[in-house]
C-alpha cells in the first residue's frame, strides 16, 4: 500500500449537546453524554498533534459547539497551534460580547445554519424558536471582520424557499452561501420519507441556484449539494476513507467520518490513550477501508474507483447491509433498486397539503 497521506482537516465534534432538535440532524441517534466529553486540555493537545501531522483546518461542530463554556479557549488553542478555525453553529447561545471574544481569540470563519427562510418553517424543522436569533447574529456579523457562510439545510419542506433564502444571504455580510440538501444519516434517516424532495422539486431548485451563482458572481460564492439518491454516481465521501479528514467525537474516539459507528465490528481508538498520529496511521478503523483491497465488484475493476472510492461506506451499510459493498446510490450498484424504491415512495407521499401535521421524530438532547 502506498504511503498514507496527511489529513487536511480535523472535524472537532466538541459536544452532542444542542439547543435545537433538528429532524435532519446527522449526529448518531445514540448521542454521547456530557459526562464523557473531552476536557479543554485534551482538545488543546489534539489541536497541537493535528497541526504537527499536517492538518490545516479544523471545523468546530457538534451538537452545538457554543454549548461548550470553554469555546473561546478552544478557538485560541486551535489558532495558536496553527490551525485555521471554522465554527459550524446554530448561532446560540451567543451575544455580541461572546462573538467579539471568539474573533479576538482567532476565529477565522463563522458558518451559520438556517433551518428555513422564515420562523414558521424553522420552528417546525428544529423544534425551537431560533430564527429571530439567527437574523440578529447576521446583524452583529456585519461590522466584524470574519469570514461568514450561511448554510441552508434543504429538504422537501423548504426547497421552495430558496429565493427567500437568497434574499437573506444578499442582505447579510456573507461571502459564501451553501444550500446543502439533507443527507440520510442519524436522525435524518428516521424522517427521510418527509424530507427527501421529488425529482421535479430538485430540478427546479437547481435552475434557481445556477441562476443565482451567475447573479452573485464576485459578491457571494453560491454552492450547493444535491441529495445523492438522485445522482448517477456516488459522492467521493470524505474524499475517501481515511484520506483527508479525521473526526474526533465528544468522548475522544477518532472516526473517519461522523456516521462510522453504524458499521459493526469497527474498533475505534481514543485520543486519551493514543496520539493523533498513531491513530491516523494505524487505527484499525482507519485502515479498514483504505486502499482498494476491500472493494467488491463492480468497484474493484471500475474506472471510477479512484474518483469516488465506491461512494460512502456508511450508506452502503445502511442501504445494502454491507459496508464493503458499492454505495447503492451508484447506478452501477446491483442494489440501486433499494434507492429507487425509496424515491418512488417519496413521489407517492409527497402530496399532502402543507397544513397536515407531520409526525416528526425530533432529535433529543443527550
Amino acid at each position: 500500500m502506498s504511503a498514507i497521506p496527511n489529513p487536511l482537516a480535523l472535524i472537532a465534534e466538541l459536544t452532542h449537546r444542542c439547543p435545537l432538535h433538528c429532524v435532519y440532524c446527522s449526529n448518531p441517534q445514540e448521542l454521547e453524554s456530557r459526562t464523557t466529553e473531552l476536557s479543554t486540555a485534551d482538545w488543546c493537545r489534539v489541536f497541537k498533534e493535528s497541526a504537527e501531522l499536517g492538518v490545516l483546518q479544523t471545523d468546530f461542530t457538534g451538537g452545538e459547539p457554543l454549548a461548550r463554556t470553554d469555546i473561546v479557549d478552544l478557538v485560541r488553542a486551535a489558532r495558536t497551534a496553527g490551525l485555521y478555525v471554522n465554527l459550524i453553529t446554530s448561532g446560540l447561545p451567543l451575544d455580541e460580547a461572546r462573538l467579539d471574544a471568539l474573533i479576538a481569540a482567532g476565529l477565522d470563519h463563522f458558518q451559520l445554519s438556517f433551518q428555513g427562510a422564515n420562523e414558521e418553517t424553522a420552528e417546525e424543522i428544529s423544534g425551537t424558536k431560533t430564527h429571530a436569533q439567527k437574523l440578529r447574529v447576521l446583524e452583529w456579523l456585519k461590522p466584524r471582520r470574519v469570514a461568514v457562510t450561511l448554510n441552508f439545510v434543504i429538504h422537501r419542506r423548504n426547497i421552495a424557499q430558496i429565493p427567500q433564502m437568497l434574499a437573506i444571504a444578499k442582505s447579510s455580510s456573507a461571502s459564501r452561501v451553501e444550500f446543502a440538501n439533507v443527507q440520510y444519516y442519524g436522525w435524518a434517516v428516521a424522517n427521510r420519507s418527509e424530507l427527501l424532495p421529488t425529482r421535479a422539486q430538485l430540478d427546479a431548485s437547481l435552475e434557481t441556484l445556477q441562476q443565482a451563482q451567475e447573479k452573485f458572481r464576485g459578491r457571494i460564492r453560491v454552492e450547493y449539494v444535491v441529495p445523492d439518491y438522485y445522482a448517477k454516481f456516488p459522492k467521493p465521501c470524505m474524499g475517501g476513507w481515511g484520506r483527508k479528514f479525521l473526526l474526533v467525537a465528544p468522548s475522544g474516539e477518532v472516526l473517519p467520518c461522523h456516521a462510522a459507528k453504524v458499521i459493526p465490528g469497527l474498533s475505534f481508538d481514543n485520543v486519551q490513550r493514543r496520539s493523533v498520529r498513531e491513530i491516523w496511521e494505524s487505527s484499525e478503523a482507519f485502515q479498514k477501508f483504505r486502499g482498494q483491497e476491500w472493494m467488491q465488484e463492480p468497484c474493484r475493476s471500475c474506472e471510477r474507483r479512484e474518483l469516488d472510492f465506491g461512494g460512502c461506506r456508511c450508506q452502503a451499510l445502511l442501504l445494502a447491509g454491507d459496508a464493503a459493498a458499492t454505495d447503492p446510490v451508484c447506478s452501477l450498484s446491483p442494489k440501486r433498486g433499494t434507492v429507487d424504491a425509496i424515491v418512488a415512495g417519496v413521489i407517492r407521499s409527497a402530496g399532502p397539503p402543507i397544513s397536515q401535521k407531520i409526525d416528526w421524530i425530533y432529535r433529543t438532547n443527550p
Partner: protein
Amino acid sequence: MTETPTMPGPQSKPRLAPGCRLNDDGKQPRTLLMPERALRLQGPSLEIIERCDGQHTVEQIVAELQKIYSKAVPEKVAEDIRGYLRLLHEQRALDFQ
C-alpha cells in the same frame, strides 16, 4: 459592506478578504487558507498574494512582478496577474478597494 468592482482596475488595491489568510509564518508549504479551501502558493502566486495587503495597487503588483520575472513577456505577466486576481475575487478570497 464594501461595494467591490467586478473588474479590478489598475489603481485598485487588492486585499485578502475577511477570514482569508496565509498559514503561519515560516510554515512550508505557504498556503492560502479560506472557508473550505486551501491553496498551495509558490513562486508567482505567492509573490502576488504577499502584495495583496490593501497598500499595493494592481499596477504596482504588475510592475514588481515584471521586474522579478524580467525574462518573461511583460504583457503576459500583466495578463496572468489580472486573471489570477479576478479568479481569487470570484472565490471571495480578495476584496478590491
